[in-house]
């Protein structure tokens, strides 16, 4: 065998979160994406758009302004968070479960020089990248119906990325904790649907009873909605910094928990 780079043996422990390992997992996702991007893009963009149009026209005919915004502006910016949520948490829940239990993909990846930490991180990154693109779809649709473009909107993909990373990690965590894919419906009904509704997407939180307003602060989606609105209509200093900090904390917490739970599932 000729002495090529691959036959040179480096006698050392490989580090954590190595770039080649992350790249390997990402490349697998990207190549697979080429075979299913149509359906994912369809559901991830059309669904929030339908919410946007339904609420926009439905409620929009009853109320013209909400919290000082045109209702289309209010809902158009709010459904960005919906698009991020749908394209990240469900993709991660179902995707990781199928790859772990049915396709056994993770067994193959972990037999390669990739650790669970790298596997979970790379997959969350990939879903977050997708969410940062899909999250912009409602904004573009809202522009057609009168939302004015602004420079701050350029930050929306970044906000979507941070939120998407957190939700992707949360999805991976949920998937690792569930024994059966049927149990996902418990989580969807008790956790995800309420969060999706009480996030200030379709109606302002300020109209809710006080306990619900407090609860909304524990909802990462609410902070995403607020940040997106701030990016589109103007930032409000410390409050927005608080929103961003909470989103980052959510992302980091879910990321570490997802790694822990996934390793427990994959390594005997």
């Amino acid at each position: 065998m000729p002495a090529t780079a691959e036959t040179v043996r480096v006698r050392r422990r490989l580090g954590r979160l190595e770039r080649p390992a992350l790249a390997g997992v990402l490349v697998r996702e990207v190549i697979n994406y080429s075979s299913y991007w149509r359906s994912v893009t369809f559901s991830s963009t059309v669904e929030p758009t339908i919410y946007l149009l339904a609420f926009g026209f439905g409620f929009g005919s009853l109320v013209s302004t909400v919290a000082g915004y045109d209702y289309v502006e209010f809902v158009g910016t709010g459904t960005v968070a919906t698009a991020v949520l749908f394209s990240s948490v469900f993709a991660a829940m179902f995707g990781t479960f199928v790859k772990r239990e049915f396709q056994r993909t993770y067994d193959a990846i972990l037999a390669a020089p990739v650790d669970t930490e790298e596997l979970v991180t790379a997959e969350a990154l990939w879903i977050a990248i997708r969410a940062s693109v899909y999250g912009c779809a409602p904004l573009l649709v809202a522009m057609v119906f009168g939302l004015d473009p602004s420079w701050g909107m350029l930050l929306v993909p970044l906000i979507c990325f941070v939120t998407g990373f957190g939700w992707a990690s949360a999805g991976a965590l949920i998937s690792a904790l569930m024994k059966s894919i049927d149990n996902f419906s418990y989580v969807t009904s008790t956790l995800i649907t309420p969060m999706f509704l009480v996030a200030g997407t379709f109606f302002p939180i300020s109209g809710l009873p006080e306990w619900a307003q407090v609860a909304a602060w524990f909802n990462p989606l609410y902070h995403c909605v607020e940040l997106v609105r701030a990016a589109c209509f103007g930032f409000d200093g410390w409050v927005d910094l608080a929103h961003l900090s909470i989103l980052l904390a959510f992302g980091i917490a879910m990321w570490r928990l997802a790694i822990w739970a996934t390793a427990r599932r994959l390594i005997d």
Partner: protein
Amino acid sequence: MEENLAIRLRRVVKRFGPITAVDGLDLDLPFGTCVGLLGPNGAGKSTTMKMLTAQAIADEGELNVLGYQLPGDSKVARAEMGVVPQLDNLDTTLTVEQNLRVFTYLYRVPRPQRREAIERALEMANLADRRDTRADKLSGGMRRRLLIARALVHRPRLVLLDEPTVGLDPQVRQELWALIDALRSEGTSILMSTHYIEEAERLADSVTIMSHGKAVATGRPSELVAEHAGAEAIEVYGPPDRLREVEASARAGGMSTRRTGTSVALLRLDDATNGGPPDGERRSANLEDVFVLLTGEEIS
């Protein structure tokens, strides 16, 4: 540390709750050889395989793979080995070539060598004319060849084959044996778990028979046969009562016996003390005789 061993296991123990799947296993795999891990279902073969890639962490014992200590240095070891899983885990919506490309990244084949690595793997698995076929459109045999090719893109020094031909036609099985044999003749070290005796007999330089998580015998297949079963076996056919009778008298006479379902096979004929074995069909003793003798007739 012996430098000439690709795999060295010492007193390895792995428990799952109350069950001890691997119970003090010793295993040596000299570089450039093919070792067959033989045993009935539940003997601990798959758990052993998983421990070698740190997908299961041993509770006790020493594991050394390619000179690296496991589980701490498992990642470096994994970079230099290829794994063919028992369960097909190809990306089914990707083509043959795409499946291989993904693995050139996962196994860190340097960019300038990726193209060539894919071609070599396609060639080796005889899949070059199927490169653009989706994995879910391949036959069972082709999928298995692709699984093997996928494990070879980075020219591993050690390949783990977990039940490489389980559930395949005899024709397909022969095809895979040729592929594994070619790999071995290139000097790749191979650990192959199997419960097909013939597979181990044909491919393995050395066989370790596992039962209840322990290695109960290790050696060249022919040596194991000579040692545990003798040169020849006699098969006696008859109704169940007659078989029981033959069995009892043979055992009393110092021979070993095993049921084959329809007959009783008498083994270790040289040990016969009571006037020699009864009449029956003579045949060469084989590894299957050893396997059943050592791992028991009862299905656990």
